């Protein structure tokens, strides 16, 4: 992956404390897994930004290499990769997600 894409990804990740690379948008998720993440973050009342990987093939493939994670969606919290749909669901169900995000956003 060339540096130009890597820089663009880094800027996107740093553009918001909670950043979601997804298929579609908050209002129009284009995939069930991406929708899971949007619903979870909405239900916790968390502010987050999104990037539609369907609009940019280079980002869609580059983000997978960036975090060595082959699927979309991908959630980043203060620059750190948190997980995809499965992990967000598990962390949400255990209560760990709310706690971790609140701690990170408060610091």
């Amino acid at each position, binding site marked *: 992956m060339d540096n130009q894409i890597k820089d663009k990804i880094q800027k996107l990740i740093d553009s918001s404390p909670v950043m979601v690379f997804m298929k579609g948008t908050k209002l129009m998720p284009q995939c069930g*897994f991406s929708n899971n993440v949007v619903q979870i973050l909405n239900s916790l009342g968390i502010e987050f930004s999104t990037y539609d990987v369907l609009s940019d093939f280079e980002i869609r493939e580059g983000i997978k290499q960036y975090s060595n*994670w*082959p*699927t979309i969606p991908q959630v980043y919290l203060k620059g750190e990769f948190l*997980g*995809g749909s*499965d*992990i967000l669901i598990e*962390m949400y169900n255990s209560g760990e997600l709310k706690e971790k995000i609140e701690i990170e956003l408060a610091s």
Partner: protein
Amino acid sequence: MVTKSEVIKLITNNIPNSEVLVETFNGNDHLQVTVISSEFNGLSLVKQHQLVYSALKAELASEAIHALALKTQTPN
């Protein structure tokens, strides 16, 4: 397309002493996979899932597996 037994073999070859359950949902390329292995002890969920993903790297890249819902556990 990839068969359930192929997925199980790919994972068990890559993750020693693992038990693998595979179900399909809305189509053979949408998989619900559960992997139980002592290899996961002490690993974060992200690391556990990355182990399974690396075992299925080619199938995910080629979209032979289009969607993968993954659950990982240590044997209790």
